């Protein structure tokens, strides 16, 4: 098992066989048919990942938007959830240009979108007042790209769990992992490595749950992470079932019938801002619970206020939604269902430039892994697929331009051995609990109000200490009931989860202000004077702790600036 080692050699290694990886592989193959592409996927290729579970549509610039691309960018800079004005506005502009053409390109590549009876692409205005519209996709949207990638001859290593990046002289030269079914150790040499592994979301039972392995590996390889503090999210949900309710957070009421949104002077119709969450918590504390969503307060005509899906909903998605509704314990006839919030703190923070290059040579990042790290800030709630597709295309083109000059690097066998041992050492642990017990404990812990919407320097320090305590103990705490791929993966997920969460909360402590979706109780206001900066983190420190530093945003160079920007310290 572990002593069996399989080595592969390839030109471009794509880690993650979801939409981003599939689109990149297909595009790269069409530009460079002789380049060997290997895809690592921990599940089975063709129907895995978030696209099939949560994808409904993708954003597109309406042709009518014309040259409103700047207006579009302005909108994103001023309102984006990743921290207002923290955009890399160069990247944003390139990303928005892609928004004009990528749907059509995907369609040529085999993607299926909703169409009007006359054959034109059907898109509808999803967001009131916004200059983008959305096209609908179906549950199996990803499948044509995956099929084309297979037909193109790519090597697809299914049931292969990526664990670490191989480096030599500061450059990435390959990766290691293991087969989830056979537990065989796998080593891959590659000229270029693309990470397409989705975000790190430590919320268990969340449909978007995803391990930290990718970030931990990139971090260990020396990659910079950016905007780590900019992804906390709340969704309104039915209490207990956790099923999301979109577009009705502004009619949440307490038992007295008071509208909470108005009572606490909330502003945003799109996102659940922290003021609303604190308000809801306060109401419950005061005994005004339970909280309900009062549908009777919604306008009669559904003009943009009742959520996303106005367009032509595709067949399987419609059927699936109806199927699922049949099993959920939701009484649709109840006009005032009890609600709560579903909270997630995750990171999408791999820093990339416009081409998708990370700060480590030969390491690239695409998709949800980079949505915050690229700092484009143009993510619309629900456009994860758009990010995946756009970045997949942009980076495929960039790799095609330089792959001919790329060379294979040498593997450091000592490093391979170190990683190999770290994968299989969990088999020796003799603790009482399973790794997933500890994972669930941590997942519950970080959702506590004092570490979430009421976090302060003191509470975050406390959490970091707790995480460090768990790390010092977990090898004695857990065992693997079976030494199989599933539990080996869980042990790795636990280790990387602790490391990345510790890093995250150290970053949270650093930014002493609140901005966008990042909020803290001890610094509730936005501070442009001191904080028009990116907080960056990498592992290049002397004491082994995360190296956290800042980079000034070149706001004077950018088209969109906050008020009073002239007072901000210039370089």
């Amino acid at each position, binding site marked *: 098992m572990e002593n069996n080692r399989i080595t592969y050699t390839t030109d471009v290694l794509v880690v993650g066989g979801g939409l981003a990886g599939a689109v990149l592989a297909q595009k790269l193959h069409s530009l460079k048919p002789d380049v060997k592409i290997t895809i690592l996927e921990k599940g089975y290729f063709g129907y*895995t990942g*978030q696209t099939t579970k949560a994808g409904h549509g993708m954003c597109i610039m309406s042709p009518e938007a014309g040259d409103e691309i700047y207006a579009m960018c302005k909108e994103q800079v001023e309102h984006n959830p990743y921290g207002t004005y923290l955009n890399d506005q160069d990247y944003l502009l390139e990303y928005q240009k892609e928004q004009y053409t990528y749907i059509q390109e995907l369609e040529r590549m085999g993607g299926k979108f909703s169409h009007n009876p006359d054959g034109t692409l059907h898109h509808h205005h999803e967001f009131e007042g916004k200059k983008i519209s959305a096209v609908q996709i179906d549950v199996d949207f990803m499948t044509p790209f995956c099929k084309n990638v297979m037909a193109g001859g790519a090597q697809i290593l299914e049931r292969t769990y990526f664990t670490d990046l191989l480096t030599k002289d500061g450059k990435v030269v390959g990766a290691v992992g293991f087969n989830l079914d056979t537990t065989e150790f796998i080593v891959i040499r590659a000229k270029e490595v693309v990470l397409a592994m989705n975000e790190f979301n430590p919320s268990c039972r*969340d449909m978007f749950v995803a391990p930290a392995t990718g970030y931990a590996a990139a971090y260990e390889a020396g990659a910079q992470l950016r905007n780590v503090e900019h992804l906390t999210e709340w969704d309104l949900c039915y209490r*207990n*079932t956790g099923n999301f309710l979109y577009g009705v957070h502004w009619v949440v009421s307490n038992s007295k019938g008071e509208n909470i949104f108005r009572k606490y002077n909330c502003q945003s119709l799109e996102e659940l801002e922290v003021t609303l969450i604190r308000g809801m*918590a306060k109401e*419950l504390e005061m005994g005004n619970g339970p909280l309900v969503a009062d549908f009777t307060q919604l306008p009669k005509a559904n003009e943009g206020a009742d959520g996303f899906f106005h367009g032509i909903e595709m067949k399987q998605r419609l059927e699936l939604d109806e199927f699922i509704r049949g099993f959920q314990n939701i009484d649709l006839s109840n006009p005032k269902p009890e609600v*709560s919030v579903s909270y997630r703190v995750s990171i999408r923070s791999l820093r990339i430039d416009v081409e998708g290059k990370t700060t480590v040579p030969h390491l690239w990042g695409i998709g949800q892994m980079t949505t915050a790290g690229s700092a484009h800030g143009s993510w619309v709630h629900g456009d994860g697929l758009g990010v995946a597709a756009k970045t997949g295309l942009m980076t495929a083109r960039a790799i095609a331009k330089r792959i001919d000059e790329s060379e294979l690097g040498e593997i450091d066998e000592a490093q391979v051995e170190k990683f190999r041992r770290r994968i299989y050492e969990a088999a020796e642990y003799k603790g009482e609990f399973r790794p997933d017990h500890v994972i669930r404990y941590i*997942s519950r812990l970080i959702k506590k109000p004092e570490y979430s919407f009421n976090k302060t320097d003191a509470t975050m320090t406390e959490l970091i200490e707790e995480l460090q305590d768990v790390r010092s103990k977990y090898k004695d705490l857990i065992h693997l009931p079976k030494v199989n791929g*599933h539990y080996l993966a869980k042990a790795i997920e636990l280790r990387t989860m602790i490391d990345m969460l510790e890093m995250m909360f150290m970053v949270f402590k650093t930014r002493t202000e609140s901005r966008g979706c990042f909020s803290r109780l001890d610094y509730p206001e936005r501070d442009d004077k001191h904080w028009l900066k990116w907080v960056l983190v990498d592992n290049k420190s002397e004491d082994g702790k995360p190296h956290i530093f800042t980079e000034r945003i070149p706001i004077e160079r950018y088209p969109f600036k906050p008020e009073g920007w002239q007072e901000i310290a210039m370089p």
Partner: protein
Amino acid sequence: MRITDLQDDPRRMNNVTVDPDLCMGCMKCIRTCCYDVYEWDPVKKLSTAAYPEECVSCYQCMYFCPAGAIKVEEAKLAFYDQLYDPLGMND
């Protein structure tokens, strides 16, 4: 951290089962689930829900199963409700 913190409240866990009398061995559940809930026995050609604790209630396995062999029973309580749980309102 207290050891009791590591124990799961069964009300907050999903339960997933595959009826072996109905399973047709088509592997659709296994290909669909990206949370590794299912385990495939290549000899018996049978799928089992070996890790129901990983289930996120996306229901796609149930949707695609041609035999109707899969049952996903959702947890009675949210995994962690940061509004009601701190106030003990779910005990």
